[in-house]
């Protein structure tokens, strides 16, 4: 027997919702759960997205009305949420496709790949947020 008894480490099997904050998810896992979250956001906001398309296409008047609707901070934050969900899911999807051809699935490569896609997702989201708020 070794002299020091190994400190008992937390053990997770099927993790319960109450354990989520204490669970150190690897970055690839973070990308993965955010992929699901962003997909769910787009699913739930789908009628809103169709409504935006409807308003933007029906007439010059409805287009102008739409610009009026989205000219408030809460509306712009909602657009940011849609933009983030779309952009994150886009990059997350590309990551899955890249993994499908067996690139970046080793123990060493997986967190690197995940961080590259996380950075791409955050940077392009930032670009979209700036465009929504009219900064660029």
């Amino acid at each position, binding site marked *: 027997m070794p002299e020091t008894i190994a400190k008992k480490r937390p053990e997770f099997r099927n993790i319960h919702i109450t354990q989520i904050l204490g669970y150190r998810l690897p970055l690839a896992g973070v990308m993965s759960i955010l992929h699901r979250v962003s997909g769910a956001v787009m699913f739930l906001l789908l009628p809103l997205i169709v409504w935006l398309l409807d308003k933007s296409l029906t007439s*010059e008047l409805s287009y102008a009305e739409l610009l009026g609707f989205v000219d408030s901070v809460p509306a712009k934050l909602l657009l940011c949420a849609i933009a983030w969900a779309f952009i994150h899911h886009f990059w997350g999807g590309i990551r899955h496709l890249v993994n499908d051809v067996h690139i970046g699935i080793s123990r060493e490569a997986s967190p690197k790949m995940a961080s590259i896609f996380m950075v791409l997702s955050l940077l392009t989201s930032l670009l979209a947020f700036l465009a929504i708020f009219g900064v660029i």
Partner: protein
Amino acid sequence: MAGRNIGQKRLVVGAHYGLRDWLSQRVTAIVLASYSLVLLFAALSASEPGYYGWAGLFAQTWVKVFTLVAFLAFIYHAWVGVRDIWMDYVKPLAIRLALQVFTILWLLGSFVWAVEVVWRV
């Protein structure tokens, strides 16, 4: 075996939709990613800014067709993804079934609305 494989003794194996879902999720994803990039590029290079450039884009038949094909890809892709969410987190069968029916109606309703929106430009 054949005669006994019914009712509660039925052996439920080999549904074979693991590969089908995996593949359809990739195919629809590629359609959606392509559509997104094409639409983004087309919108950024529209003939004029504002309503007329945007509506002029959707007045073209290929944009309408590509939009609605991408929407069909979206509803199938979203069905596979959202169904998996319900299967992972919602165990009571009645609630899960209700959520799955809601998911189908939500997606089909949005699709029909989108057809109406896109086809009258």
